């Protein structure tokens, strides 16, 4: 059983403010979902976490590299991106003090 404290901790970790009255309902819902998804352990009993299949092909995991070449011209996207900043000063993104 997941506790209310655990829900609050998870919300903190996920950087989400959750109203107190929602913590209890979330606890119940997440408990029910965890109970349901727990059946995966029966499928994969004894199986370890699969290591990624190497090499190309179906489901294979491999690195895709490209030459670090032909960068876009400086300023190509700046105007559009800056237009989306919630807070800005001149052409700089403005954020709260960090330290």
């Amino acid at each position: 059983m997941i506790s209310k404290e655990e829900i609050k901790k998870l919300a903190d970790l996920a950087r989400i403010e959750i109203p107190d009255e929602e913590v209890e309902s979330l606890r119940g819902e997440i408990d029910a979902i965890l109970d349901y998804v727990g059946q995966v352990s029966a499928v994969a009993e004894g199986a370890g976490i699969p290591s990624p299949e190497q090499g190309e092909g179906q489901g294979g995991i491999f690195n895709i590299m490209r030459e670090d070449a032909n960068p876009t011209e400086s300023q190509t996207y700046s105007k559009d991106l800056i237009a989306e900043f919630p807070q800005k000063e001149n052409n700089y993104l403005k954020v709260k003090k960090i330290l």
Partner: protein
Amino acid sequence: MMIKEARQLLDNKKISAKELAESCLKNIESKNKELNVFLEVYDDVLEQAKEAQKIIDKGETKELTGIPLAIKDNILIKGKRASAASRILENYTATYTATAAQKLAEQGAIFLGRTNMDEFAMGGSTENSAFGVTKNPHDISRVAGGSSGGSAAAVATDMALGALGSDTGGSVREPASFCGVVGLKPTYGSVSRYGLMAMGSSLDVIGPIAKTVGDAEIIFNAIKGKDRMDSTSIDLTPSPSPCQGEGNEERTKIGVPYHILEQDGISEEVRKNLIESVEKLKKLGFEIKDIKLPNIDKSLAVYYIVMPAEVSSNMARYDGIKYGLSAEGENLLDVYKKTRGQGFGREVRRRIILGTYVLSAGYYDAYYGKAMAARKIIKEEFNGAFKEIDAILTPTAPFPAWEIGEKKSPLENYMADIFTVTANIVGCPAISIPSGFSKIDGKDLPLSIQLMAPHMREDVLFEIGKRFLIENCKLKI
């Protein structure tokens, strides 16, 4: 109207691109208020039609030139708003165009507007949209399905000739099923994800919704292909279809895992419709084989671990700093928490927290690790089955469209995905095809079958699907 028909009319100058676009706008005008399909209709539709007409007049027509399409609100078009039906991106304007949309634009297709969806594609009914539910055109007291509910309803009501949706666990197929249209979830990687807002990155794929299998194929062919902006994208390697050519149908084997119908929560109509559909396929000359996929019923459990895990990391980018909603806060942490608390709806918050849990130290092995191991086992079962058969048949959804507000708990909602998530877990292509109706409260609610094929074998799905729908037409006449 179908895309194929419209193409002929446009090419023979029987109608102009402007007239075609106007007929869609007229349908939107008369039905959108009631159904809540489009979140925004673009103000440059007729302008786009004019450009498309120029291409047609020059005789440089491509398959989708001048065809009006609807685009799901999580696919970016530069300069247009894209909100993923979320408050956190309510006023966000896309700064680049998704590859799939770009490919459509290059053919001269017309973008009518952006369609409603469950917030960030999380849901199966559009009830999780921050901007209201999309109503089912067949019964407005019911949901249109989701998450691509707006796209499916747009096609069903002739507001658009075709649409793009995205499918992470059934989000193209289930609304297509509920609205009585065709929906394709392509092979993972066959359509670039560049410019699609990420939900579950190992599961997400953009797919077409259309009136017919042939139309879905046209859109799919337009958007597929390897893209340098998405390292997981692939080129489909064409191989001869087992069921191409007359007289070869008997060699196409369709496997039916009948045992999945024994699960709880599947409506009697859906069971009956599947059996009837099997009979229809037999009459068409397909060989039907009873197959066993011992762990297919665990796919949903695997999905609801893997997906929230990926959601929790993908959603981290929405923090109120660089774009989107930014709430006032005392310090940086406070800005994050308030922005995400206010900007995300309940289902999104729930999945982020669930994902955070299954990935956290101490629980990782028990949930995410086990899910990955089970995912591998299910993939192997599918690969094994496809050695004996060409396609797998199941219903698309365990029940027809439900009443708005009927499903109370998250888990009840998740059960709608029971047949669709497997294709995302495995990465194989799957198509939803209308297969009849279920009469409920005096209304005919659409039902559909789902066909799955081996990776990169969309051609098998198109071939079986086309034959199946022609049979339907014959029966109607």
